[in-house]
C-alpha cells in the first residue's frame, strides 16, 4: 500500500485555490474549538438564505447575549462564526458549495493535527495497491502512519453519503488488509448522526469497517471527548 498525490487536473487546481482561501482557514480555526451548538449555527448560516446577521442572532438566542447565559468568550466566538459563515454564504451558490466542502476538510485536518504529527497528515491523496486499479477520486485527508494509516472522506451533509463513497472507503480497507496493512476508513459528515443514519439505512454498500464521525462527535478526531452542548 502506498500513498500518492492526486493528479493536478483542472478541477484539482481550481479546488486547491478554494482550499487555500484565507476564509476556509479562518472558518476551520473557529470551528475547531466551537461548541456543538456553534457548529449548528455555522451549518445553518452556510445553508441559509438570510444574510442579515441580526436574524441569525434571533434564531440562535442561546449563543448570543445574556439570555443565553453565555460567557463573553463564547459570544465573541459565536459572533466570529456568524460573520465568517455569512462571508461563505455571500459567495454565491456554486462557490458556497465548494467552500463548505473545503471547510469540512480543513477542520478535519486541524482536529487530526491535535492527535497525530503534522508531517504524517496529508490531503488530496490516492492510495495505491498492487494489482488494483487506482480510484480516481482522491481521499480528502490521510494519516500516513505505517501500520496505522487512516483515510478520510469529508462531506458537508448526510446527503453526500453515497454507495460510491462507501464502496471506495471499504475497498481501501479490504485491499490494505490483503496486503497485511491496517487502514482505517473514516467518513466525516458535518451533519447530525441522526440524518446520517437515515441516509445509511437504505444503503446496501458495506459500512461496518468504516467509522462515521458526525457534527456532534467531531472532537473525537482530536482524540478528545465531544464537549457538552452550549
Amino acid at each position: 500500500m502506498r500513498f500518492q498525490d492526486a493528479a493536478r487536473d483542472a478541477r484539482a487546481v481550481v479546488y486547491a485555490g478554494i482550499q487555500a482561501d484565507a476564509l476556509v482557514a479562518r472558518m476551520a480555526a473557529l470551528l475547531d474549538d466551537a461548541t456543538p451548538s456553534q457548529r449548528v449555527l455555522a451549518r445553518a448560516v452556510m445553508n441559509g438564505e438570510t444574510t442579515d446577521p441580526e436574524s441569525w442572532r434571533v434564531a440562535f438566542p442561546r449563543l448570543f447575549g445574556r439570555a443565553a447565559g453565555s460567557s463573553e468568550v463564547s459570544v465573541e466566538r459565536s459572533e466570529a462564526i456568524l460573520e465568517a459563515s455569512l462571508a461563505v454564504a455571500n459567495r454565491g451558490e456554486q462557490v458556497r458549495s465548494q467552500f463548505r466542502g473545503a471547510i469540512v476538510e480543513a477542520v478535519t485536518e486541524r482536529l487530526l493535527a491535535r492527535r497525530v504529527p503534522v508531517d504524517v497528515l496529508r490531503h488530496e491523496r490516492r492510495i495505491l495497491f498492487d494489482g488494483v486499479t487506482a480510484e480516481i477520486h482522491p481521499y480528502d485527508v490521510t494519516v500516513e502512519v505505517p501500520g496505522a494509516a487512516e483515510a478520510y472522506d469529508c462531506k458537508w451533509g448526510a446527503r453526500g453519503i453515497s454507495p460510491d463513497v462507501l464502496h471506495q472507503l471499504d475497498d481501501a480497507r479490504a485491499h490494505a488488509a490483503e496486503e497485511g496493512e491496517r487502514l482505517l476508513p473514516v467518513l466525516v459528515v458535518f451533519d447530525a448522526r441522526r440524518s446520517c443514519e437515515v441516509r445509511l439505512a437504505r444503503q446496501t454498500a458495506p459500512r461496518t469497517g468504516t467509522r462515521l464521525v458526525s457534527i456532534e462527535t467531531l472532537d473525537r478526531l482530536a482524540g478528545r471527548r465531544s464537549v457538552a452542548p452550549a
Partner: protein
Amino acid sequence: MTTIPALAERIVDAMGRLVALAEAVDDEWTYIHDLEAVWVARLRAVAAERVSEAADPAIEPAIEPAIDQLVAEVGLITDPHRAIDWLSTLPQATLVAFGEEAW
C-alpha cells in the same frame, strides 16, 4: 400562552413545506420522507418531555422569536436541493433554540 409543543408543531409544519419543495428531486423521495419522519419524531419526543417535566409551562422569552425566525427562513427557500439540506438543519437549529442537544 405559547408552549414548546406548540412551537415544535410550527416547525413540523415548516418541515412539511420543505418536504413539498424537496420532492421535486425525484431520486431523493425516500430519503426526504425518512428524514422528515425521524426528525418530527425527535421534536415531538422533546416537546412531550417538556410537558411532563414542567412545573411551570412558561417558556423563555427568546425561544418564540427564534422559532419565528427559523420558520421565516424556511419561507425564503425556493431551491429543492436547499430544502433537503434544511430538512436536517432546521430541527437541529430548533433543538438548540429549545436548549436541547441538537441531535
